[in-house]
């Protein structure tokens, strides 16, 4: 009987005494997460939902009142649009050239400037400098440098063969634009790699050297593995950025680019999308194209993440494995 009374009375006491504390904690929790949650919903979830809805309409930027539901027609159209296929191919090629070139060069530069060379700080600053120049200025400087008729490069070549007018930005558009892009981003990549290199414990390298390893073996078996998390990060970021490249060709090719007048070799996916949206007012179709690219980027990122286990070295995992 007494046991029963206790059993009945206890939950009442718990509810009376503990509930306010739970409520307070709950309120505090929601109060703290509310700013982020509100921003996340307002600035991410709602635009994403609206973006998906837009991609399934014939919205042209002005016809909100009479907009028509298209279902998946815009997506289906993308698979029959030869310009989409072509520009996607160019973006993949651009990314395939741009990403490894940038990673290799910025890593190499970081390795060089991680050595105790004379004037190291000066060179670090010098190589980083292009990264602080806005992309507009970078693009214009290079456009002037590579100009067919008045460019400095052709001017130098004309000293040896007067009247030289190589069409760098037309006949060599892909390598020329890659050079501009890599040059502009080299400093940023270098700084991140440099930070990583400086985080490698000296004793590991010293131990390897004492054990008889030469510099190349130290680089291959110590430096590279310890740098793989950073290389992985740089790879992911470079892939995403390069597949979304838009501003650089647009500026290099001036006003004509607004209408799709960039060199065909660098007629990238996002430029084609821009043309659909702003020259033909195909906001619905353009948004569908952007969603398709998002899916591709997500897929590629996932693939790279999946491969990470085979080549990215995490000290913590190694330590855990050993234990």
């Amino acid at each position: 009987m007494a046991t029963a009374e206790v059993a009945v009375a206890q939950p009442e006491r718990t509810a009376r005494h503990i509930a306010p504390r739970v409520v307070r904690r709950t309120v505090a929790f929601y109060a703290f997460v509310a700013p982020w949650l509100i921003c996340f919903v307002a600035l991410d979830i709602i635009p994403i939902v609206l973006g998906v809805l837009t991609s399934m309409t014939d919205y042209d930027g002005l016809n909100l009142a009479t907009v028509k539901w298209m279902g998946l027609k815009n997506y289906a159209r993308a698979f029959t649009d030869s310009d989409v296929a072509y520009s996607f191919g160019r973006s993949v090629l651009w990314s395939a050239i741009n990403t490894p070139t940038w990673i290799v060069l910025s890593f190499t530069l970081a390795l060089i400037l991680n050595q105790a060379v004379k004037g190291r700080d000066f060179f670090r600053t010098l190589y980083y400098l292009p990264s602080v120049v806005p992309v507009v200025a970078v693009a214009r400087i290079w456009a002037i440098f590579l100009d067919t008729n008045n460019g400095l490069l052709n001017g130098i070549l004309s000293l040896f063969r007067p009247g030289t007018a190589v069409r760098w930005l037309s006949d060599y558009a892909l390598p020329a634009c890659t050079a501009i892009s890599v040059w502009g981003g080299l400093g940023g990549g270098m700084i991140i790699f440099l930070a990583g290199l400086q985080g490698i414990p000296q004793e590991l390298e010293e131990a390897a050297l004492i054990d008889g390893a030469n510099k190349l073996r130290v680089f291959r078996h110590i430096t590279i593995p310890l740098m793989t998390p950073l290389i992985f990060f740089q790879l992911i970021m470079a892939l995403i950025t390069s597949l979304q490249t838009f501003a650089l060709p647009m500026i290099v090719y001036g006003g004509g680019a607004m209408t799709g007048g960039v060199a065909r070799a660098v007629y990238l996916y996002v430029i084609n999308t821009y043309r659909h949206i702003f020259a033909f007012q195909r906001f619905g179709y353009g948004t569908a194209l952007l969603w398709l690219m998002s899916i591709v980027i997500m897929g590629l990122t996932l693939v790279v993440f999946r491969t990470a286990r085979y080549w990215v070295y995490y000290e913590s995992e190694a330590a855990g494995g050993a234990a």
Partner: protein
Amino acid sequence: MFAKKLSRRDLLKLSAIGAAGTVLAACQPQVVEKIVKETVVVEKEKQVQVEVTKVVEKEVQKEVTKVVEKVITQAPQPKAKAASEVAMMMWGGELSDDEIKQYNTDHAPYKLSRLDPDQVRYFAMLAAGNPPDIYRLQAPEVPGLLARGIPLDLTPYFETSMVLKIDDLAAANNFYKGNSPLDIGTGKIWGMVKDWSPDCTIWVNKLVFQKAGLTPPPDDKPITYDQVFEFAQKLTKKEGDRILIWGLGVEWGWVERFWEVWLEAIGKSLFSNDFSKFQLQGNEDAVKCAKWHFDLAKNNNVQNPLSPSPRGWIGPDFLAGQIAMCQYGFWYSGMVTGTANTETGMEGENKGQAIMIPAPLWTDKGKRISTTITATGSICSRITKDPDATWDVFQWYNGQEPAVTRAKGGWGVPGLKSFYPMIPEYNEERKQVKRVLMEEIKNSEWVVRFNPFLKGGEPAAVGASWATYFERTLKGEFSFEQMIGNIQKEIDVAIKEGMDRIL
């Protein structure tokens, strides 16, 4: 002292004298009093007169006030201004912070704010139901916006305005008139130009002509486009593969606008009457227009994707003497000759060598058209919160201080005819330009057709299609005919989409 006895006669004399004296004494104050009294009366009369005058004036004033008040109360009263904010999408160079400040002081409680023109932002604001009250645009955009019911009908405001009188509107404003998107030119007024320019006029560098051993074309009569083509070929200067001077400079973003002007000069058009068909492929006249531009590019007589502008666009290249002729219109005079406050102009030995010549003729037999193909101006939003406040800004911007400043600046022809005398002519270059301009204005009344189903303005659909295939055709990837076929296909689809969305 009184030893002599006073006789009765003496007493009488004395009494008489005394009496007389008394009388006199008695009379004296009366005279003075009389004089004083008379004086006082006069003064009083004067005072009364003044008072009366005052009273009368007061009464008259009262009556007048009553009458005026009566008149005023019987007349329609302007509404009391309520505080309102008006957002205007316009570049800072076209609407300065000082002008905005002045407006906000003079036109309180209305408050004006400015936004940089930005299509993405404009579309987003429209979608959110909160577009800028006044939007900057070019004429090719007007039919498309009208078809979607974006602009506010300003006709009633124009009809009663003492600032923007309908009779005073320059012909370029006809691009903002229309009773339907398919019929632009007359009817309701939806907006007006901030300024305009006969855009087909050509700038000529006399020095380049002289160096090439050629006589510059006359500035008092138009040459033909065939002659322009010929000049462009002769004036192009090469060194090996390098182009040192291009014969002609063309704004490729306006390419289909030029074609439409040329075709309309011979009674043709790129579009069918109802704008449902694009008439390029198979239309000999239209193809000829496209070929004219293409051949110039193929020969490198004009800048093109394979031989681009070293400075990014033709404007500074002409100033530097690297382009012999430049088809850019009157607005460009702001750069060529500079303005009252700027030092810009032709560079080095090219200074003072530029003249403006009339818009060429497509054929000798065609109509002479020297119209604007940009007609940059503004419209008011139909869903503006306070149409009166929006109109107040619109009227001020287009007919008062800012319009005067722009007219005197020389970057465009004013939107009001009465402002034409303000167009600057402070040096010989300016005088030459104005002389040619005033003749061109006589041929500026033509309203070019723009398709409401296609994206107009910059970038525009036809121009975008041209730009996409241009480089590839120049490189030989396509033949010219294939390029025309591709443009035709692409624009056919775009028109159909536009019709589906609008109709």
